[in-house]
């Protein structure tokens, strides 16, 4: 589904990614771990299409298509979803309106009719309940005056409503208490299916107690320095990232 080959990227004068390779197949959950500043968010944003980064080498294929050649909204409509590490506030726009507009934009791209109001509300209600969110939040402005945890949950709600093919969760676990963490994990697990894939970016092993990844990768110094199964996460938990960074420098 997603094939990242020898990806090099920079922002301003800063070379951030220095040859990332990653292959994600349908049905899989991948975890990307790594210390702060190692380029996890950069990688996530490049998948989503943020224009602050310049890809200097390499390519990304998404379902066989050149992802880097697609507009941000086209990627979204084709099923790429990024749960932001820092969700953005939109004053004066209700969450409900925003969600519906987003869904209808994606539908329009696929030449589908807009979702019926009733159908939308029923779906919203169902997902709110699953995520333990109060429906009054839907009438509030997008992310405005939301607590850190509420913002993260709101990202998962959007994911649940949009049903993406490839979801990238950028540190959705940070700032969440254990109950919220479980709910978010439930949200991700509910989306698990043979057609979809998820990339979970985190730098704690904690989340992986609830979302069991098929593969774990460690990003350090702009490269994936180690890949393994979920046991790698436990190893990291024990030893910390220090040894990996040394490895990265050595190679």
């Amino acid at each position, binding site marked *: 589904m997603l094939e990242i080959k020898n990806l090099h990227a920079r922002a301003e004068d800063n070379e951030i990614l220095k040859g990332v390779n990653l292959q994600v197949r349908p049905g899989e959950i991948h975890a990307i771990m790594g210390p702060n500043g190692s380029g996890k968010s950069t990688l996530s944003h490049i998948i989503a299409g943020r*224009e602050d980064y310049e890809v200097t080498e390499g390519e990304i294929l998404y379902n066989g298509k050149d992802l880097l050649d697609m507009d941000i*909204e086209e990627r979204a409509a084709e099923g790429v979803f990024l749960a932001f590490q820092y969700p*953005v506030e939109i*004053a*004066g726009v209700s969450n409900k309106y925003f969600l519906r*507009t987003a869904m209808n*934009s994606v539908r329009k791209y696929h030449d589908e009719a807009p979702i019926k109001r009733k159908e939308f509300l029923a779906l919203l209600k169902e997902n709110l309940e699953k995520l333990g969110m109060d429906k009054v939040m839907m009438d509030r402005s997008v992310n405005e005056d939301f607590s850190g945890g509420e913002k993260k949950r709101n990202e998962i709600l959007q994911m649940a409503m949009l049903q993406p093919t490839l979801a990238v969760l950028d540190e959705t676990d940070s700032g969440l208490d254990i109950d919220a963490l479980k709910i978010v994990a439930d949200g991700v697990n509910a989306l698990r299916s043979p057609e979809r894939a998820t990339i979970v970016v985190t730098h704690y092993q904690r989340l992986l107690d609830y979302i069991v990844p098929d593969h774990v990768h460690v990003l350090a110094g702009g490269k994936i320095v180690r890949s393994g199964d979920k046991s790698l996460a436990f190893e990291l938990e024990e030893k910390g990232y220090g040894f990996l960074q040394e490895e990265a420098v050595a190679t």
Partner: protein
Amino acid sequence: MTSENAMLEEFAQREYEHGFVTEIESDAIEPGLSEDVVRLISSKKNEPEWLLEWRLKAYRHWLTMEEPEWHNVKYPKIDHQASVYYSAPKKKPKLNSLDEVDPILLETYEKLGIPLHEQKVLANVAVDAVFDSVSIATTYRETLEKHGVIFLPFSEAVQEYPELVKKYLGSVIPTSDNYYAALNSAVFSDGSFCFIPKGVRCPMELSTYFRINAENTGQFERTLIVAEEGAYVSYLEGCTAPKRDEHQLHAAVVELVALDDAEIKYSTVQNWYPGDSEGKGGIYNFVTKRGACRGENSKISWTQVETGSAITWKYPSVILQGDNSVGEFYSVAVTANHQQADTGTKMIHIGKNTKSTIISKGISAGVGQNSYRGEVKMMKGATNGRNFSQCDSLLIGDRCGAHTFPYIEVRNTTAKVEHEASTSKVGEDQIYYLRQRGLSTEDAVNMIVNGFCKEVYDVLPMEFALEARKLLNVSLEGSVG
């Protein structure tokens, strides 16, 4: 520059959809302004002597005045002798029946989305349609008459209710008030007159739709609304003009009078032709609007969505004379391309426990310049007077500007004035976020801008809010590539 930034930079070329011209023969006088012209206008309208004198007094005073230059807008001096001061469609419509209105005119309004056939008109909105210098049709007159509500073209009101007109005309905005108000007083041609008698809640929204059609013609309409004790009315005003390369002057005067316990809600969606993307053509919208809360517990609200005009210069104000009276001003002003706006309000607190609220939202794109200018005055007698002002500016792109000029004067120590201001940019991170959820850049900008205006939309009557949203989106069309 990122490509997103480049797209925002293009936030300029917009299509103006009301820019067509109606081919109709008109009865226009020669260009130029003089006492004779003032007399000619008055006689064409068969006005009583007192009104002619009133006009002449205004004209003579205007001659002694200088065009104001204190506002933050730039334009070449207007040659008032080049303008035509009276133009009317030739076939004089009989106002008793819409069937007798020239079909070309009906078609024009149909095209503008303002059908004048009563079967088709907006449900529960009475419309007075003003075309160049005259009113061509007023709908729902009979229904209104049953409730005692007078809603007439100004020139007819002068004939039918001279005493009422005489009593209130110029009582809020004296002929000598300012340069453009004086000019309007001298040459005003038509407009709407509206009178809600004691205790009547007007059963429908009243609306005037102004259309400038003729070339080189100024439009100088006059609106006068009086709400007697305990009366209520909601009034809507809309405006459009054809695309023309020359600038055209629109200098209107609107006076509102609210007696004890009366309420007037005045909403404007101003969409005069703004000029092209190079700044050629467009309407100079120099307007004086003021309401007097004369009675106790009276209330006047101004709500405006200003998307059109090359230059907008207006300050809908409220004089809070009656104790416990309330004044409100809600405004969205958009300047794209080369548009300039210097707009705001004045709240003059005279009575006790008077309250005012000002919410101003300025949006600038292209090389548009947007200024908020507001004055809040607490006079000696304004015990416990309260004002809250909030002025927010939104910038789209790097070449536009927003400016805020608040003037505050407090002469009563128990009065309180609060002022908040903010300036923000449509953030690239916001656009990115929305696009990541599937919205196009254009839809994303529209969503952000409409969100920014929400507090003002919330107080607009329903149909107008939809119209305003649509207009704003059109204004911003093409600006984001």
